[in-house]
């Protein structure tokens, strides 16, 4: 293989692709061809870099120069300047918010600087559609090590000792799960390993990025898991809405089969294992283990009681080990570098009790009112403040942080006072939220917590399977109550009623979706009760979100009569002549806020 002078790593994650990174790549190739650089420079599409907010991203290796927000028309200049003349183009380099100087090197950018990569170890470094790239980065070494030099029990012991806990949200110790599956009686010895790639939380894209950027790491983890457990078949349940992930999985599976890493007699060890991909039809509840298995079986995706665990009777009543994408991706490095290496990162002590701490790293997707939207992998035990302010670059538009929501729709909202909380499975649960699959939504003072709770309850109401009464009816009634609070029709006792329904759901709902569904309500009541009380008693929404509780007025002193607001108003509620005071008709106004955003004189006031 010819050694190239430069490798241009173009991000081909979904975020960058939708921002035309493939056109950037095509432009690069054209320009390189034009300048006769094809022999020296290679253009490689990579998986998601995580810094989706500034995409499309181009990383020039081996120097590590980080370009951002590229457009195809920027490319001729960039190729000429950087590739021919060796001068990085300043205007495409990253500039931290509120600063002036650029940061040319990726490793110096704070967003990347504080991250520790295990699950995302190959991000931006390899072409996800080439098994050779993965192998070049220590890929399949762990599988080879496990299959050729370790007994299944030894593999199991390493995973147990590493303290790895389920990254899908539950935080169940992976080693214990594997061991239970291995020990569970099976009449004909059938056992399954399953990969849960049904990522459904709004705003979460950890699993997607891992699959799209490094599908082989998941396959390798599953091979190792199957070897330890004694499974001969694996399933990947990936949601239909992830076409790129699906495509990359299929490519990776074929490559692994061709290379003898899947199928009969893997690596000549006599161990046989293969993986099938199943597409989910887009139900949030199918991320729940029993519903996922029901769906895999071809039945309606509804959960069942887990009094007999799926590790004993799961898919087709056989012992089944279900782990999340990120969990599987964590396995190869653990086998390769040992449990001790893994336990150096994280909190607590897992040597005696696997629930004693949270080890390793966790991938979070940062979203909401934050400067650096994207995907980050951080060690367990990092504080929320570090994630939000150091990595995330703080709150956008200089607003004040109000709350951080973790764990997706079933998680909870944590207030600013808890920013110094060390993030791990147990602290988040204790604070009334949860780790979940790693969604992290940052809210500022313009977000109404009651409306926020209503939004999530709405989402859950649509996604609940409707099988059990507490979840189905509880969500319906909570939605009804929250809606009336947002509409300014809240009654005394509504907060208590919400708490009462929540208690019933926690105690009596069938599956984790139902028992965790009250979290958005309970955590907002716990930390932002005064906002609820304001809505109910004073008819006031301090964030100005609940339309029924706000009115827009024109400040007579500031209005210049520019007519901008009148033109922005979609319902023609604003009247007024040029250079004269404008008036909003409250009966016509539908409180969309378009005038508020349009006015350049701050003359529109929200009351």
């Amino acid at each position, binding site marked *: 293989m010819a050694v190239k002078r430069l490798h241009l790593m173009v991000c081909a994650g979904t975020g960058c692709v939708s921002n035309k990174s493939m056109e950037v790549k095509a432009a690069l190739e054209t320009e390189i061809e034009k300048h006769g650089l094809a022999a020296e420079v290679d253009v490689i599409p990579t998986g998601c870099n995580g810094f989706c907010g500034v995409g499309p991203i181009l990383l020039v290796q081996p120097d590590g120069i980080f370009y951002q927000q590229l457009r195809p028309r920027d490319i001729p200049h960039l190729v000429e300047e950087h590739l021919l003349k060796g001068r990085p183009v300043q205007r495409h380099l990253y500039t931290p918010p509120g600063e002036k100087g650029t940061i040319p090197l990726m490793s110096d950018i704070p967003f990347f600087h504080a991250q520790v990569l295990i699950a995302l170890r190959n991000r931006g470094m390899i072409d996800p559609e080439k098994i050779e790239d993965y192998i070049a980065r220590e890929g399949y070494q762990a599988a080879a090590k496990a299959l050729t030099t370790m007994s299944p029990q030894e593999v199991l012991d390493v995973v147990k000792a590493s303290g790895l806990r389920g990254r899908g949200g539950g935080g169940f110790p992976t080693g214990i799960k594997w061991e239970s599956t291995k020990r569970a009686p099976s009449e004909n010895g059938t056992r399954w390993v399953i990969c849960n790639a049904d990522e459904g939380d709004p705003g979460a894209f950890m699993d997607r990025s891992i699959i799209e950027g490094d599908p082989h790491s998941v396959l390798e983890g599953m091979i190792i898991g199957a070897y330890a457990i004694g499974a001969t078949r694996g399933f990947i349940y990936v949601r239909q809405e992830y076409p790129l992930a699906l495509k990359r999985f299929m490519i990776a599976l074929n490559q692994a089969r061709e290379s003898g890493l899947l199928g009969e007699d893997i690596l000549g060890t006599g161990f046989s294992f293969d993986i099938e991909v199943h597409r989910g039809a887009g139900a949030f*509840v199918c991320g729940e283990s029993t519903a996922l298995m029901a769906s895999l079986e071809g039945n309606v995706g509804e959960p069942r009681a887990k009094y007999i665990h799926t590790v004993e009777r799961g898919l087709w009543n056989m012992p089944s080990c279900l782990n999340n994408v990120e969990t599987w991706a964590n396995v190869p490095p653990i086998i390769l570098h040992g449990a001790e290496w893994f336990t150096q990162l994280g909190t607590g002590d897992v040597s005696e009790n696997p629930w004693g701490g949270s080890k390793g790293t966790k991938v979070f997707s940062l979203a909401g009112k934050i400067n650096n939207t994207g995907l980050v992998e951080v060690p367990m035990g990092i504080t929320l403040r570090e994630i939000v302010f150091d990595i995330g670059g703080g709150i956008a538009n200089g607003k004040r942080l109000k709350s951080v929501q973790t764990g997706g729709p079933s998680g909870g909202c944590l207030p600013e006072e808890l920013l110094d909380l060390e993030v791990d499975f147990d602290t988040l649960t204790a604070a009334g939220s949860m780790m979940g699959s790693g969604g992290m939504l940052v809210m500022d003072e313009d977000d109404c917590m009651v409306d926020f709770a209503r939004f999530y309850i709405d989402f859950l*109401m649509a996604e609940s399977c*409707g099988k059990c*009464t*507490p979840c189905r009816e*509880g969500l319906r009634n909570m939605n009804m109550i929250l809606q009336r609070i947002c509409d300014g029709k809240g009654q005394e006792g509504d907060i208590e009623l919400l708490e009462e329904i929540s*208690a019933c759901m926690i105690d009596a709902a069938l599956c984790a979706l139902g028992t965790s569904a009250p979290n958005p309500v309970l955590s907002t009541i716990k930390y932002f009760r005064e906002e609820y009380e304001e809505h109910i008693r004073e008819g006031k929404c301090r964030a100005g979100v609940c339309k029924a509780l706000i009115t827009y007025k024109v400040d007579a002193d500031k209005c210049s009569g520019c007519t901008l607001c009148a033109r922005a108003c979609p319902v023609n509620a604003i009247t007024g002549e040029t250079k004269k005071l404008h008036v909003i008709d409250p009966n016509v106004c539908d409180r969309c806020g378009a005038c508020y955003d349009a006015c350049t004189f701050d003359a529109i006031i929200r009351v």
Partner: protein
Amino acid sequence: MVTFEIDGQQVQVEEGEPIIKGAEKLGIKIPTLCHCEWLEPYGACRVCTVEVVMGKRHRMVTACNYPAREGLRVLTQSERAVAARRMVLEMQLARCSTVPIIQELAREHGIEKSRFGEGTETCIMCGLCVRICSELVGAHALCFGQRGTERFISTPFQREGEEGPCIACGACVDVCPTGHIWMEDLSARKGQPQDFYLGPKSAIAIPTQQAVPKAPRIDPDACIYLQTRGCSICQQVCEPEAVDLSQHDEEFEIEVGQILTTTGFQLFDPRKMSQYGYGRLDNVLTSLEFEMMLNSTGPTGGKVLMKNGQVPRAIGILHCIGSRDENHHAYCSRVCCMYAMKFAHLVKDRSDAEVYQFYIDMEAYGKGYHEFYSRILAEDVNVIRGKAAEVTEQMWGDEAEGVLHIRCEDTLVGKFRDIPVDMVVLCCAIEPQSDLGNMAHILGLTRSPDGFLLERHPKLDPIGTNTDGIYIAGTCQGPKDIPDTVAQAQAAAARILALIAKGKVLIDPIKASIDAEHCSGCRMCNSLCPYQAITFDEEEEVSVVNDTLCKGCGTCVAACPSGAIRGAGFTDNQILAELEGILI
């Protein structure tokens, strides 16, 4: 066995059995809405939520599916359990405020009115119907549509009626606790073959109280297992394991020397005469159905009742339905007049109903029969000479209640009459079994123009047939009453026994014989033989005459295209010699 504790009381259940089993044993009531003994636990309604304590760990579980464990402590009335249950019921009440079972359970838990409104939904989403249809019936005709709060019970792809996989067994209707599912057409219900009050109420039943053998019988048209391979509950519950659903029809071959044919009759189907409204109007019965009703071990215990359970005020008995009728059967069925008189007598005996007989001629010619006719006349039974023309449904005077009207011509008075009754009994004709032709073909018997089997001689041999060793008795030969049938059957039995006692048969020496050398194997003679005496030998590929059956009629001799059959004593040479003798 595992021993555990519910509300302080010890109980034992099999390993793996749910808590609720133990509660049943102790007589502790844990309310449920979605639990059914015959179905896999579902755990959807959550009304049976209880608190369990294992060591220090407290947990909320559902009693219907949480497997009892050794040393488990179950608290059905703990504060948490009651609170959860109350809230579940209150929310159910908000959804289904008009459903009695929910109202009742809510009231038991101290909830009169829900704080979340008063919905009028009637489905509580217990899923019993869906599950019984899939798990037990195996028809998969019901499913859930949508999800979450939008969830509803539906048929697959919302197709209904003939298109859908519903077998109309009614299992879903039976399990539905709220009446959300009902059957539009009860007569279509296969699980209960006759919703009419006659006949068994389920697919497996002892057909009548006097049935011999007195064992339940499965109706293959109604049995869910035989339709879909679902259910099989009867097999599961039968402790002596007497129900074997894997059984199927078997054929036996038995070699016998003589056959007595007693295949009986079938009743004329009165639907063919739509003017009498059978099958269309309620309370129009056939004579056999009325006979069943009058039986003291019958479905009504011998009471004469209408479909609505009331005692009829008047009953019309219509003679000659299908008999003595050029359009159907020209013959007289012989027994109808007498049983119609018996009906009249029994109705008079058991109720105050008026009885009307509509007859053409009152045939009462047996021993003691005419005396019986006089007796019913004395019992004030109205006899009207004239065949009923039609039965219609009309209003009876001012009373707004549907009754039946019988129109007829009273030929003795010479007037048209219109008689209102509550119930009509049709004395249907006795007719040959519909498959008697097949039977006759198999046995080589002939039939008279009316379709009944033909005896060898109406006066000299009313028992025998053209085929030796085959006899007939009873109504397969023609309409007759019980005394006649018994007499004929006894005679036939005596004939058979006589032959058995003798041990051998004398046969006529005049026989046909086939020359195997010349037989071409065309089998023409096989079907021509009126005595079924010629069979085909598959191995030798020639036809063979059964000497015992051959009557020496000579049909085959004349028909054989190869000239291979000879009649003993009637060879060509012999006949020619005879002719020569005559002519010379």
